[in-house]
């Protein structure tokens, strides 16, 4: 029974996604070994990973949805809920904390009207905490979309976020 249901779900992955996942599978001994890559591929195409995507990927990789969801939910950069166009990852780990990330967070919240874990109503930004961006020497740091911002001052928040989105 599970088989027939999951069979019907496979098509929810696009040709392109399947092609990229297949390319990963070619490098590993078990299909399920590419679970993380497959999640990343789907997220790249859809912005996030839905329950349906979890089932589709799982069935394609011969694993249970439960098992894959365990992996997906373990990683904070796999988004199991929709996110805005750009994700703001604000580091609040030790170096950034010493260098004042709390102030940055306040500024962002003032400007965008969102707390950690929330998305602006115009869907442009989602604000998330992150434990390290690998740039402690330039603390405090944050990432907006693909772009890393170093030595961020509270005063530069408005510029970085384009002065947009009023609360």
């Amino acid at each position, binding site marked *: 029974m599970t088989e027939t249901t999951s069979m019907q779900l496979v098509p929810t992955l696009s040709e392109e996604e399947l092609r990229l996942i297949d390319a990963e599978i070619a490098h590993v001994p078990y299909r399920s070994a590419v679970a993380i890559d497959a999640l990343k591929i789907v997220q790249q195409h859809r912005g996030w990973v839905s329950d349906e995507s*979890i089932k589709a990927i799982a069935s394609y990789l011969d694993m249970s949805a439960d098992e894959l969801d*365990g992996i997906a939910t*373990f990683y904070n950069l796999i988004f199991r809920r929709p996110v805005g166009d750009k994700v703001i990852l604000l580091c609040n780990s030790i170096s950034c904390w010493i260098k004042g990330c709390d102030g940055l967070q306040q500024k962002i919240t003032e400007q965008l009207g969102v707390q950690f874990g929330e998305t602006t109503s115009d869907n442009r930004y989602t604000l998330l905490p992150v434990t390290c961006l690998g740039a402690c020497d330039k603390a405090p740091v944050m990432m907006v979309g693909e772009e890393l911002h170093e030595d961020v001052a509270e005063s530069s928040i408005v510029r970085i976020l384009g002065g947009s989105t009023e609360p």
Partner: protein
Amino acid sequence: MPTIRIDGVEYEVQAGKNLLESCLSLGLDLPYFCWHPAMGSIGACRQCAVVQYQSEEDEQAGRGRIVMGCMTPVSDGAIFSLDGDRAREFREAIVESLMLNHPHDCPVCAEGGECHLQDMTVMVGHRDRHYRGRKNTHRNQYLGPLLNHEMNRCIACYRCTRYYRDYAGGTDLAAMAAHDHVYFGRHEEGILESEFAGNLVEVCPTGVFTDKTLVHDYTRKWDLQSAPSVCVGCGVGCNTLPGERYGRLKRIHNRFNVEVNGYFLCDRGRFGGGFVNNQQRLDYPGLRGDDGRYNAVDHHQALQHMAEACRNARVAAIGSPRTSIEANFLLRQLVGTDNFCPGFTELEQTLVNLALELQQQSSAVIADIRSVESADAVLILGEDLTNTAPRLALAVRQSVRNKAYEMAAGLGLETWQDAAIRNLAQDRRSPLFIAASGDTRLDDVAEQHLSLAPQDVARLGFEVAAAIRGGGGVGNSDTAAGRIAAALMEAKRPLVISGTSSGSPQALQAAAAVAEALAGAGHRPMLNFTVPEANSLGQAMLTGSAAPSLEAIAERCDRGEIDTLLVLENDLYHRTPAALADRLLHSDSAIIAVDGLDNRTTSAARLVLPAANFAETEGTLVSLEGRAQRHYPVFLPQGERRPSWVWLLACMKELGHPTATDLHQFDDITRACAATVPALAGITGAAPDHHFLNVGVKIPRQPHRYSGRTAMRADISVHEPKQPEDEESPLAFSMEGLNRWQPGALLPFVWAPGWNSNQSLHRFQSEVGGPLRGGTAGMRLLGAGTTGPTAAIDPPPSFTPVEGRWQLVARHRIFGSEELSALSPGICELVEPGFVEMRGADAHGLGLTEGDGVELDAGLATLAVKINDSIPPGCLGYAVGHAGTANLAAGASVSLAKATNWQRPPQVISTDRSGGGHV
């Protein structure tokens, strides 16, 4: 044996163990969570911390380092401290941090009073909470009718997923998220798929997974009265601990038996006892008048009627393979051997007797569960074990891990190094081959699963045997038989399993032939056969193959040769096609039925005597490995219900039956049976008789904290009645007495000071995971034979499908194929309506899709269709024991037609089936 020093005291310990299990075996209290005796160590919870010293100087200087007991091998000269301040403080801090998010809701938690987390918290002395932050609150999931989910109580020990996935092979439970948010559940709500999910109740050390049927009808462990019992769900005979309160069976826990079921039960066994509370239970004896009305009578009148019907009359009797040897034996004494049918159909009689004879003759070792787990190559012929002998399937699932242990041994890793070994082996397994008519629930760990018609399953077995004998075919990788033969020959402990469930005597013979061929080739093979019911094998030992079958009795009924037919605990409409049951029950003979539940058979009876069931009486059952085991009443039957043996004995006394003169008590019957039936001579050794006293008193069924006894019946009367005396067993309906040091067969519950949960079991074991101190319960009646099968058997002709006909193959379901468990709350919600399984192409050809109705042989049965492409071509699977399938027999050939006017069976309303077992 290495000597280690703990807090200045030297101990000799077993080599190869870890410090935690060594400490527990020594009787030292070392707290733990994630380690489990059956699952080994992963070092996840950090609760078992101790200080290890490098040397004596290190110890004197008070240095040393914190290590995890469960991850530390014991080695000669090692020095540890359990009691040192540092170790204690560490352990206290661990409990505190594991409980940061715990809701402290013990008063409303079903685990309370038998909670390992409570015990460990007290053990480490943690009292004051320092955390002042917000706690996480999780959303719980619906996991089906058997288990309750309350995630807030989780301490993230990972036992549940390790058990469910790694041990039991389930795929639909996982650890989600990370750090403070970790969540153990399913991807989305839904019924847990594993047939062994219920063990989570005992595996989870907190109240996350609890028994839902208990939660709906709740009593704390300390208020439960319990007794050693044996599961009547199938032939495995798992040892159980049912608990009672207010005359109701509340729950069933595992009773450890190292050779039968270890730490685990299947869900049919754990949740299948609820029929005891079913409202279809008969309360009073009754006489059916000529007008068909059922009139209750008291038990003296009932007995007189019974005796009257037996006096100077031609009496025959039908016994029951699902009740005790003693009741069956008495019934046989009452009517005489020639008139006693064991309750088998002809086919069943052939199968069960063949299973018995082949095992008696075979030079193979009849495997107990530990031996099954130790097998390094397994061949299963014609069985879907998970659905026919579930606990055995769980053991076979462990056997495939022997490859991993072998690899680990090469690296010097002990078997308890669970994470390391799983990492090392990945998915490499010892070979398991399954040949069956359709998919089975062990296919996921099988090297090969062959779906064949029953004849071809047997043929394959004979080919394997021939390949082994001939030597030449072995390793011929072109044929399945050659590959299987090679794998079995390469193994050190090969195991062959077959059974009666496919209805094929040849499968049994083929399995025995493989075992014999292996023995001939110098191996010491193991052999196992499943049998249909809890006492099938005992019944065969009692009666042999010459006893009249149901068909033979029916012929006598047809000829009017039987005046009175006694039917013991056997619903013939469940067991046989309606036509045969009608011949037996609706001839001119007067029917007297002794049974617990109202059913179609009791409805046909002139006189009905309400019988006690497994939880209300003592009895001896013989399991599939030929082990005689005793079960004891957990509580006494209510009202006019009596154990069947009591009814029968009283009737014999009333009749002045000569063989009953010396029989007064249950033990007398057991002894008389052992003396009369050579094959059963050993049954008296199954457990001590009623004279046994433990340090001068009987063993209590109630824990010393049993509360509210004076108030329990206050709604009926404020006068507390005297506790009933138990004159039949070494157990007492009392809190007084000693529950320690007794023989293994007499363990009514586990509890030890400081250990309120089931984890206290290690205090009753000779060593952690080892046999009970009082010895392993039960008596094996089958030794290894020496002769081997007497005659060479020719393989059956291979199966050729006939156009337009289908051969019926039996498909068993853990929930639904067994009569009584299917009437229990929880399980009854999981039982499907009767169905047939057919290949997609066959269905298509008949214009059928999933869920349509199909008519078999013009009127034989009309059932819902399931598409299953694993069914062999030309075959049609049918759900054994389900509604609407009683007329079907494995091996029969049927025609099919799309049913007109088919209506899908209505959704079951569970309370209808469980008879309001819980509300």
